[in-house]
């Protein structure tokens, strides 16, 4: 009898415990609080050659922060392939980090979810004010007319990386400044199993960055002025076609690049299999792959006229990483302190040097460390010929839809199927139909 009663009591207790744990899942609050002032969770994006490299770069800085403020920062480095989905999941569940890195192009999309703390005048004042940051970087922090959803952390720009020895062997004296020159040089370099240019054909984000710039150079854009998706205008189609044609028609990109999505094009370049690479802030990555800094040169990405500038002479997106605070944080003041720390002059110098990016903070950018020839090209590009991707709520959907469409076009090119203006337009129209209905 006693054992029966014990079993019954056990069953009831277990049921109650289950019911209780099912109801109370975490302590998410909607407006942010200071309930746990001694810890922060930080999701960092993968900036170095690997997640491990990032941990080595960031850990000493986080320890420094802990020493100063007594706040322990739990670090998680999230690979790019997962980052957006992780942020979406965190937004949906309300269970996320306190502070996080976001790709600056996602700012407006994530801003629309309301998951990020708006940087109004008061919040900005807590980290030293808006004027600390470079204007071009601030242009990628959210929709125009709204408080920024994040603050700039690292700035990057695309450049043309070229292998000096391969250029010399082929008798090419200087890096190409126009696409016609690039194709001509690329043809000279594409022989004996080596190729002129590398591309990351199966990576939707890389595809988008290039497509955006190529479209700009043809006077096209992927969104109308009032924020509607418009992927099939002549400029956008011509831009996408010109990019894919580097493989399809000009044949200076190896067909195998159509399935690259894990930065294989960077290792190909580092190993001398391709002579040129269009990449953002690649120095640190190349170094970790064993390519010494004097083996390659850095030049601005070509434009049709030969002189980068604004309008149709844009030759890079404003690439970069923003730092955002999750609105649900339970350590609001700690999170702001952390943002202030990460955007301080000293930390900006250390981190941007480690990642070969450019500080978006004016006073840090002036430092001599960022005046090397490599950084000079990137700085010039950011200052004079880079344009921000559309800051609209549908931006990240656009990245996935159009980036995937271009992946398909590269697959066509690799398989030897013709890539025509019509096939490009059809692929882009299909992508537009996937966009949210307005």
């Amino acid at each position, binding site marked *: 009898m006693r054992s029966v009663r014990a079993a019954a009591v056990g069953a009831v207790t277990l049921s109650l415990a289950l019911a209780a744990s099912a109801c109370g899942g975490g302590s998410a609050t909607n407006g942010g609080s200071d309930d746990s002032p001694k810890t922060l969770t930080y999701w960092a994006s993968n900036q170095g050659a690997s997640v491990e490299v990032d941990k080595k770069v960031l850990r000493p800085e986080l320890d420094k922060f802990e020493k100063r403020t007594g706040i322990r920062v739990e670090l998680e480095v999230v690979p790019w392939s997962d980052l957006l989905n992780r942020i979406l999941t965190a937004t949906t569940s309300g269970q996320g980090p306190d502070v996080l890195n976001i790709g600056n192009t996602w700012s407006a999309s994530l801003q629309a979810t309301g998951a990020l703390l708006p940087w109004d005048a008061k919040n900005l004042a807590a980290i030293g004010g808006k004027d600390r940051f470079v204007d071009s970087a601030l242009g990628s922090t959210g929709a125009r007319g709204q408080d920024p959803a994040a603050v700039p952390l690292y700035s990057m720009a695309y450049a043309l990386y070229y292998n000096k020895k391969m250029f010399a062997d082929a008798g090419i004296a200087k890096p190409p400044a126009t696409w016609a020159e690039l194709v001509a040089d690329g043809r000279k370099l594409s022989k004996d199993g080596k190729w002129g240019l590398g591309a990351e054909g199966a990576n939707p984000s890389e595809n988008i960055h290039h497509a955006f710039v190529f479209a700009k150079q043809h006077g096209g854009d992927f969104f109308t002025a009032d924020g509607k998706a418009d992927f099939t205008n002549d400029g956008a189609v011509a831009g996408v076609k010109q990019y894919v044609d580097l493989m399809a028609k000009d044949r200076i990109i190896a067909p195998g690049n159509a399935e690259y999505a894990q930065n294989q094009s960077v290792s190909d370049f580092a190993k001398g299999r391709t002579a040129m690479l269009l990449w953002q802030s690649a120095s640190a990555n190349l170094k970790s792959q064993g390519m010494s800094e004097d083996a390659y040169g850095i030049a601005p990405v070509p434009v049709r006229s030969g002189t980068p500038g604004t309008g149709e002479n844009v030759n890079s997106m404003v690439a970069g990483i923003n730092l955002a605070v999750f609105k649900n944080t339970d350590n609001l003041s700690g999170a702001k302190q952390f943002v202030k720390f990460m955007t301080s002059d000293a930390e900006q110098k250390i981190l941007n040097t480690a990642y070969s990016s450019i500080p978006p903070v004016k006073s840090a950018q002036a430092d001599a460390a960022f005046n090397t020839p490599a950084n000079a090209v990137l700085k010039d590009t950011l200052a004079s010929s880079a344009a921000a991707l559309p800051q609209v709520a549908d931006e990240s959907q656009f990245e*996935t839809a159009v980036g995937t469409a271009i992946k398909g076009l590269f697959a066509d090119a690799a398989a030897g199927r013709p890539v025509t203006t019509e096939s490009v337009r059809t692929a882009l129209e299909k992508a537009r139909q996937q966009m949210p209905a307005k």
Partner: protein
Amino acid sequence: MTTTAVREPVRPAPPGAPRRPRPGRVRRIGLPYLLLLPALLLELLVHLVPMVIGIVMSFKELTQFYIRDWGTAPWTGLGNYQVSVDFSAPVGEALLHSFLVTVAFTLLSVGLCWLVGTAAAICMQDTFRGRGLLRALFLVPYALPVYAAVITWVFMFQHDNGLVNHVLHDQLHLTDKPSFWLIGDNSFWALLTVSVWKGWPFAFLIVMAGLQNIPRDLYEAAALDGAGVWQQIRRITLPSLRPVNQVLVLVLFLWTFNDFNTPYVLFGRAAPEAADLISVHIYQASFVTWNFGTGSAMSVLLLLFLLVVTGVYLVLTSRGRRAASDA
């Protein structure tokens, strides 16, 4: 209710009222249910609650503007379903295409898994030296973690330095130029290869277990009557395996139709059109538009389809069996 019954003190039932259940009996009847309570609650928590939430989501316009606070998302009635099944519009058309690809893929994969698994199990029925070792070896693909196994296939299928192209093109010269396996139309066959490789050991395992139940005398009697190997397989082995096969094929079908891991690891989040399986398609559709309502509606439709197929399959196969046993 049951808890109060337990706490009631034991009392002898008053005479003359035999219909009233005695508390002792209540306790005896109630206890099993009480003991089932934790399992029931867990079942609710793990299975039913997420399913119900998914179904509720499918009636909402759960876009990026509302995901932070689901309560504020407006109801759309059947709107999400209309979008999903409007096969003349792009979203429905893509879903239909993906559905057909999945059906073809599932039929081929289940058929091949079953064929290879059964053949292997029958070959291994007689004892010979090294049988245990071979059996263990055959089960390796099934025992490997999905990610580790599939990522190895990704390396083998690579265009430039993959093993598959090395063998087919460089050594056997079967193709004019190296083929693409992870993009374009060949991706369907790559996916099928991996799926069969991963799935047949399960069929092998189940059929092998089923074979142990067939009495040896049947074969001996058949051999005496002059039946050859093929006749033995057709007349004895396969009919005896019928109940095992019924479950095996159903389980393989459900697993293959719903498989997410294999295509996702093989192709990443943007699967090529030729290998656009429905589970990845739904995932991709939800995350492209950030419209989780439409994604849920598609999932509910998938669930309904699988329920119908399972129901029809069970009715058909068990009726066939009843007819067979009546005869």
